[in-house]
């Protein structure tokens, strides 16, 4: 075997090892049961979505966004919330965090409903902002408690 072909195989094995181990680690982390940290991170995402929804609503009421931007951005955040909700509902969790998971699912369902209202009823905009803020605060408290 020449020196060049030796180099090729060393490089190939290193590259394959790096890519495969990264892909395996990501896949395993997605398939394994939710840990307390995973749950806290999902809750942090939901808190961020709730806070953004509240701020977006305030900005729209203040005339700082276009209707198209508001509708599209709210729809995209709702998709993200629904994705988190699906992950929370379908994931297995350890028994000690089952109560927290149920509470997170409940708050995520409320959040999803709020974003649905934003896209369907412009009349409720003024009350949606404070409701999203309250949900954000509840999620924040839960997140802090789980640290």
């Amino acid at each position, binding site marked *: 075997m020449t020196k*060049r*072909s030796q*180099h*090729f*195989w060393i*490089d*190939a094995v290193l*590259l394959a090892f*790096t*890519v495969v*181990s*990264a892909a395996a*680690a*990501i896949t395993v*982390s997605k398939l394994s049961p939710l840990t307390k*940290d*995973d749950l*806290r*991170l999902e809750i*942090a*995402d939901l*808190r*961020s979505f709730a*806070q*953004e929804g509240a*701020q*977006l609503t305030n*900005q729209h009421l203040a*005339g*700082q*966004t*276009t209707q*198209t*931007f508001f*509708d*599209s*951005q709210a729809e*995209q*955040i709702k998709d*993200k919330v629904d994705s988190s909700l699906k992950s929370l509902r379908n994931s297995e969790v350890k028994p000690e965090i089952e109560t927290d998971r149920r509470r997170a699912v409940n708050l995520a369902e409320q959040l999803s409903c709020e974003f649905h209202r934003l896209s369907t009823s412009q009349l409720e905009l003024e009350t949606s902002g404070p409701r999203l803020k309250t949900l*954000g605060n509840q999620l*924040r408290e839960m997140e802090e408690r789980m*640290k």
Partner: protein
Amino acid sequence: MKNILEVFLGILTAMGGFVEIGELVFTVNAGVKFGYKLLWMVAVGTVGIIVFGEMSGRIAAVSSQPVFYFIRQRAGYGAGLLTIIAANLASLLTCAAEIGGIAILLKLLFGGNYILLAFLTLVFLLLIVWFLSFQAIERIFGLLGLMMLVFVAAAFWLGPDWTAMASGFIPTIPQLETTSDYFVYAYFAVALLSSIMLPYETYFYASGGIEDGWNPSSINQNRMIVMVGFSLGALLAVALMIIGALYFAPLLIEPQLPGTAAEAPAFLFGKWGLIIALLGMFFAFSGAAIENALTGAYNISQFFGWNWGKYRVPKDAPRFHFAWMIMFVLAALIIFTGVDPVEVVEYSIVFSIVILPLTYLPMLLAARDTDYMGPYANGWLAGILGWAYFILICIAALAAIPLLIITHGGKG
């Protein structure tokens, strides 16, 4: 005047490194999580990409040979082939993310179905690259991408604490609450460095220099272009970090969507601020998509010794022109599956990090070779900086993937 216009090659290249969709969201989040504490890494990364960008441009100007010619020549066929596979996968995934990002922006501007908008984006990009010359592309997207400066205005408007900001440029390990926070800090530092020094920027930049007909007399112009272009990219990255620290962090928002970043200019400057920010992102993402599709085609053509270049008509370089079209089409197909564009970029960084040393070592060896470069070989400053950065990116390459896994992609 021609020299001034050529600066847009640097700006367009920098758009792909500093403000493409993944980097935009990532940089704002770095500001949300760590305030000004990671500004020093933007400075370190910017000097690094200026060093290697200048080197790749100088080699192209002296030898009229692009980066992949040297990778094959210095590293051999096998290692070169692996580098090209990883490089083109990274460019393909980044191009896909940009197409998804452009479709999101069109939806935010005009509404409509996301997949349909992604298809229209594909058609738009194919037509642009088919009909416009390389010079027209770099000038149009480089110039209109400057609308991103609305983020600089927004950062200034937010009234940063200049003393605290200046101290953010001094490399430090800050006092953080938990061990996990230190890992997240390390992840953000390494990922910022790696993403600013993405190898495809040098592939594109050197090929662009050859497209623009550079020769040894272009070396000073090359220095000016990398300094202006990449410094402008750094200015945008700093502005995005300030916006993260001063606007989103107090609101407890960690942006995950490109549209979220535009909410800050909207808050400060109203609807026009929002529209300018969205248009700026549109041209920046489009520039990054074109940069990655062309880079994929440049890499393959240069590696296999085919005729290449936008300046050549399709009849004279059919495989090169077919390659960039295939890059766009494959990228769009990835987006049609409904995958999240921001997540796609995270995967592309895995491939980019692996090829960082494989790209920069052959370039460094070629640039210091006096037999090849003659009087234009690396001087002592370029030599010291080049090797120092090479060691740094090797450490970053080794640390990046374990940190990605430990920190759940930087979330904690």
